[in-house]
């Protein structure tokens, strides 16, 4: 049966970092509309730094939990901001979910989405409808739970989660922000996408594609 190893973690983060680099200027633009225009730098910088740290520690005998803890602290220290603590919590929870092993069965991956969503909600006290990244992560976790209950294949579940996240992100356009920097704009925040939700949807899309690619690999 297919597994997810510490080496796969490095590979996955390389993909996530590339995707965030590709989205950087779009995210900056979105954040300029209702925030401070730095969400692109934060996501690209944070995931880039985490990917490099994982790459450097690759082959050092780390468990998945250790790898994700390294990713969390690296991302946090590279970025700070709001994104840093939120994704650091998410990655620490993901590490706890995968545990002290250096490889796990592939079907543990949907649980990572659920764990990350929980980490973000716990750290930021955000709720769906606040117009934050929770509006992408929460439906994604919901879809993952539903997929697991239905006994779907891991890659398929991740794709469903990515779809749910994208829809959730798009729904933020109609929302008035209740948390984060955009909340200060009040009604002026309506009509704009939340950058954190958009980047979350992109991460989940990238995760699903990466898993699909693994499925196709020999």
């Amino acid at each position, binding site marked *: 049966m297919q597994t997810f190893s510490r080496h796969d973690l490095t590979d996955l983060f390389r993909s996530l970092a590339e995707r965030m680099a590709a989205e950087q200027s779009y995210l900056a633009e979105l954040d300029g*509309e209702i925030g401070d225009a730095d969400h692109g730098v934060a996501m690209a910088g944070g995931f880039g730094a985490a990917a490099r740290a994982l790459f450097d520690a690759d082959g050092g005998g780390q468990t998945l939990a250790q790898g994700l803890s390294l990713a969390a602290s690296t991302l946090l220290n590279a*970025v*700070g901001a709001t994104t840093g*603590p939120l994704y650091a919590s998410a990655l620490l929870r993901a590490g706890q979910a995968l545990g002290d092993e250096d490889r796990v069965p592939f079907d543990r991956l949907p649980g990572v989405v659920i764990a990350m969503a929980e980490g973000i909600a716990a750290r930021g006290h955000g709720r769906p409808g606040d117009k934050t990244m929770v509006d992408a992560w929460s439906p994604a976790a919901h879809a993952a739970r539903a997929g697991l209950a239905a006994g779907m294949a891991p890659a398929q579940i991740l794709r469903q989660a990515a779809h749910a996240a994208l829809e959730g992100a798009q729904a933020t356009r109609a929302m008035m922000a209740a948390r984060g920097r955009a909340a200060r704009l009040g009604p002026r925040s309506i009509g704009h996408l939340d950058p954190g939700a958009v980047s979350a949807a992109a991460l989940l899309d990238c995760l699903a594609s990466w898993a699909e690619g693994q499925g196709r690999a020999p």
Partner: protein
Amino acid sequence: IKKFLNRPQDAVNETVEGALLAHQGLLAPITGAPRALRAVDGARPGKVGLVIGGGSGHEPGFFGYLGRGLADAVAIGNVFAAPPPDPILAATLAADGGAGVLHIFGNFSGDVMNFETAAEMATARGIRVRTVVTTDDIASAPVDARAARRGVAGNVFVFKIAGAACDRMLPLETCAALALRANARCHTMGIALEPGASLESGKPSFRLGPDDMEIGVGVHGERGIARARLTTADEATDLIVDRILDEMRPAEGDRVALLVNSLGATPQMELYILNRRLRQRLRARGVGVHRTLIGHYYTSLDMAGVSITALHLDDELTALLDHPCSAPAWTQGGRP
């Protein structure tokens, strides 16, 4: 928009390096923490330590407010991004004189989370930490949601009050209470004529038409609460003063300290023109002015715009405001 930059991603580290060189007698590095600095004449045994910090792009904020009578250490984030917990912890350790450490920073979700984590880490090491989150930006939320407001240029006054209290060797709870009081009596509002430009893209964070101005902006290139047609300097001042007076509700004979602050690209000539009208309005309300800071104290990259802060004084705050201090951005010998 053109800037003097090397690689944008190096800008913050290069700024810190340049600041350490420019202010050799006042600022010192903290070993092992490149994004934290301490005051040369900072922590001393028995004194409450004052740690400030936040994102970069506000120069001379925050490192400009390190020194005797002001803060003891600073944690420095990326541009407009809260610093992570590690430099905040390093600053806390450097500021610690055994009497506890006071954290003061503006109310932004990132700063709150990162300082919170750092405070937990410091507490685990046996350092007592108290936190004051500044919320002086009256445009950023209604008065009944004061705790949701942003902390902006009023930081400068809150740092000063707290720094003076610490320098007078007052206990941690008292220093925190005074800082809280200063924050509660601090009212700021900003107006932008042009947004600042991102270091990465060189592009403005939002667009303003040639006849528009943006009212109630923050200090991260965020939009404000409303867009309006460009007005005269006097009318722009009135827009700000009306709201400040509305909230402050000064009694005849009350006194304030003023900060007329450039958000980056606005030159000092314009600040003086605004100050003239500001004083006319205050005089008409019977409000006296004890001290005025005017210049570039808390910026938002190269945003063209201004913020006005009024600190509603009482006798204790006045005495602390007049306490001497010696920092890169604020040096005073005593009474104004």
